[in-house]
């Protein structure tokens, strides 16, 4: 086995007695104080996550149209102060990765999933997109929570939601992946400790990837490798709202076909009536339409099991059955998000 990669903040994590796990080849903190506690820090107060394992690439403004032709959203026409969630698609219209762009006057920062960084850099290179890989020279810290903005106001010029900012050594945007407000901050490794110490002094607590997962799930947000794969399109994943690209882009024909025909897989949110969690791979039956759970866990806010299920075709009703270790359990598909 090859040695696990570590972020620049590895020593900080171990000094805080974090429980470390192997996350796609990276040694990352799973939790410090316990997943549920950290979940509640973010929902009720605020927490920060080291997400430096995610890929960070600097792209050039003069290649915007080329980049735009590889994603399903409109990047060119939005202002140079905006952040954009989008997906790189393959020729079949399926997800290569879901990413965030931070747009600035002089450049763009692309943030991709850790497990897809190599795939995305190869993809960009094969389409003659230039990039400067910042991943190993910088850290990325997601500060999230009800009180995050209020606590950060003294040090950072807080941009509007889904907008970017830069202030001396920090590059950031008002984005995140927990369903709460907050900013994600990138800085060089040399400034990482200063940033972390500052966050701790303003009483923002370190949180691990365990709570990041329960938070994103409860926030109704898909995770690459589970809800999104190279076999699922944004139409199927319930991400039609990201399909705003008016120009031609890779995978567009397939995406348009799916929108027009309605014949495709369907990703749905569910709650379960019971005290068992339907985990990844659980079989689901909705009349004669079969599905598989992509992610399932406990919702600390709703206090019930929740998750995403991917159906082969459109489920005809909202009442579904889950085969959990041989027992059939009833559940409901939701039209709304888990948290309103």
């Amino acid at each position: 086995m090859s040695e696990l990669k570590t972020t620049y903040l590895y020593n900080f994590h171990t000094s805080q007695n974090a429980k470390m796990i192997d996350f796609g080849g990276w040694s990352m903190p799973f939790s410090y104080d316990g997943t549920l506690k950290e979940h509640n820090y973010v929902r009720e107060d605020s927490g920060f996550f080291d997400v430096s394992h995610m890929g960070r690439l600097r792209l050039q403004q003069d290649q915007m149209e080329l980049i735009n032709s590889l994603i399903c959203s409109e990047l060119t026409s939005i202002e140079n102060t905006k952040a954009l969630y989008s997906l790189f698609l393959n020729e079949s219209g399926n997800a290569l990765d879901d990413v965030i762009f931070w747009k600035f006057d002089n450049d763009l920062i692309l943030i991709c999933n850790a497990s897809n960084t190599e795939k995305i850099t190869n993809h960009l290179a094969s389409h003659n997109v230039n990039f400067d890989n910042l991943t190993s020279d910088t850290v990325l810290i997601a500060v999230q929570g009800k009180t995050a903005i209020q606590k950060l106001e003294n040090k950072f010029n807080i941009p509007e939601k889904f907008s970017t900012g830069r202030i001396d050594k920090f590059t950031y945007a008002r984005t995140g992946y927990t369903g709460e407000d907050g900013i994600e901050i990138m800085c060089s490794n040399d400034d990482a400790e200063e940033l972390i110490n500052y966050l701790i002094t303003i009483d923002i607590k370190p949180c691990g990837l365990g709570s990041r997962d329960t938070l994103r799930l409860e926030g109704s947000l898909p995770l690459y490798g589970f809800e999104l794969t190279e076999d699922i399109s944004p139409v199927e994943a319930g991400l039609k709202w990201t399909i705003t690209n008016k120009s031609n882009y890779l995978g567009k024909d397939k995406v348009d076909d799916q929108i027009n025909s309605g014949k495709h897989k369907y990703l749905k949110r569910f709650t379960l009536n019971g005290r068992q969690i339907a985990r990844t791979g659980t079989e689901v039956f909705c009349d004669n339409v079969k599905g598989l759970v992509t992610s399932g866990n406990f919702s600390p806010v709703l206090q019930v099991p929740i998750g995403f299920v991917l159906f082969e075709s459109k489920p005809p009703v909202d009442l579904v059955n889950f085969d959990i270790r041989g027992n059939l359990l009833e559940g409901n598909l939701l039209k709304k998000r888990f948290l309103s």
Partner: protein
Amino acid sequence: MSEKKYLETHEWYSLEENIITVGISDFAQGELGDIVFVTLPEVGEVFNKGDSIVEVEATKTVAEAYAPMNIVITEVNSQLETEPELINSDPVGDGWMVKAEVKEVDDSGMTYQEYEAFIS
């Protein structure tokens, strides 16, 4: 109460005359993460050694606790229905899971020192 013994499947038990108390080890609860649901057996249910007696749902994964010997359930810790986190906070005390009458004593579990060596 007798000294607690441990199994390779991470349960602990203590035996007093022919009544056994069963729970999961501190190591096991740490590996599972936050426990959110516990499915306990019914009083009177009969289990053979190695049968699954309790199902534990945690934020990280699901796990089962197995019968350390042939038993009949006499009492369950119903506090766990509303406070499953007791297994995290006090796995070898208030987080006990079941008490049972032993049909056939098999006191072959590991001592704590042996268990510690086993998990390290």
